[in-house]
């Protein structure tokens, strides 16, 4: 369970998150939508402790992420994250990308790590690209590799930050398919996305962010069909 409790976060003078409350239960898929700069990415990086927060609390399985005593590296093993920019490690082959963290962080043996990596890569449809370098992959393939890389750590939670928005339109589908598959397998996920169709089809709840505030949250049918907040309404109108 991920519990976000009244989280405030500023970059210098700029308050980016102005008191966010959100609880994501096991097996739930929450989609986050909202305008540029509304703080969506920031929230995700706070959840896995890549950014400090100013006040409030974030608990992952009851462990407070930003507590001094918390071992964030261990915590992050539970939380996979995939970013908008493809973050393939360019100097490693696809399979080396995937086994690096299991080997160095979990201390897995080479054979074991490779077995897991192969399984995950086949899972996302990259079974035939194991020894390719990322520069030879399309953007969509790179994103799927990044997903496999995160999955290889056997995370309990996955965070996705606009994983399709830097892709050519024809590549978006393959990545969304992968996400859908994960959701169906019962992975707990928070997805920041601009793909409204995806949000509607896959998520249990959709949250709308506006200027650092979670303006509205609800089941997709409710939020898309009958948005309460005027900002939500105008945002939805603009993206359609």
């Amino acid at each position, binding site marked *: 369970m991920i519990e976000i409790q009244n989280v405030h976060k500023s970059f210098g003078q700029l308050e980016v998150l102005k008191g966010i409350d959100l609880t994501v239960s096991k097996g739930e898929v929450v989609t986050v939508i909202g305008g540029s700069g509304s703080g969506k990415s920031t929230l995700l990086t706070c959840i896995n402790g*890549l950014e400090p927060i100013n006040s409030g609390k974030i608990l992952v399985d009851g462990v407070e992420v930003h507590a001094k005593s918390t071992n964030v590296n261990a915590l*992050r*093993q539970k939380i996979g994250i995939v*970013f908008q920019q493809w*973050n393939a490690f360019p*100097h490693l082959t696809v399979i080396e990308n995937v086994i690096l963290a299991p080997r*160095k962080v979990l201390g897995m043996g080479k054979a074991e790590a490779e077995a897991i990596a192969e399984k995950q890569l086949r899972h996302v449809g990259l079974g035939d690209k194991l020894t390719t370098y*990322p520069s030879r992959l399309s953007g969509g393939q790179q994103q799927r590799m990044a997903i496999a890389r995160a999955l290889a750590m056997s995370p309990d939670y996955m965070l996705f930050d606009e994983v399709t928005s830097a892709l050519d339109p024809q590549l978006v589908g393959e990545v969304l398919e992968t996400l859908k598959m994960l959701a169906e397998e019962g992975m707990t996920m928070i997805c920041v996305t601009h793909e409204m169709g995806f949000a509607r089809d896959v998520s249990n709840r959709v949250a709308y962010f506006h200027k650092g505030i979670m303006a509205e949250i609800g089941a997709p049918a409710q939020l898309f069909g009958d948005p309460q907040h005027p900002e939500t309404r105008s945002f939805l109108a603009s993206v359609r």
Partner: protein
Amino acid sequence: MFDYTFQWNQALARLPRMLDGAVVTLEVAVLSMLIGIVFAMILTLMRLSDSRPLKAIAATWIEIARNTPALLQIYMAHFGVASFGIHFSPFTSLLIGITFNNAGYLAENFRGALKAIPDTQARAGRSLGMSSLQSFRYIIVPQMLRISFLPMTNQMVWAVLMTSLGVTVGMNTDLYGVTQDLNALTFRTFELFAIAAVIFYIITKIITLGARLIASRLFRY
């Protein structure tokens, strides 16, 4: 006008000794590069650190190394520090001088290389649960070394050329030192130094070609 008589056999008879000198020259250059890379890494980390004194020490080292003559640095490593009662042999002094110089230039290269690596790379590493040291070691450093591989090759060539400055601190086993000794014996200045020049040229070519070979094997991405 061209009445100078070349006596190549006089000089060529000394070729074995000069080749021994070339080995020492290479030894100094390689050692100074290896140690220099380690120090350059440390300097780079110091620069990235939040500690002001560490930053200042790194910056001072780098700027002095880059803004004063290598000859002065080597001379300083021998005669300068001896004023504090610290004595280094000519070999060590030369090695220290060149290493100091290498580390300064390489650290500057590393900094440029770091800038070229998107910081999302480190983030990606961290978010997989790697410690900051792990992500530096496994993700940043390999990419950094690739980007600065060509500058490193150039620095290696300079390190070889810089060994010629060892004579000022009493070094006489390296290629230049040997050549100068032989010159004192025979005064066949032109012939001896021409041969030394050819040997130096061949060494630097081997380094650049070798580096290209290594790069093509190492960096396949």
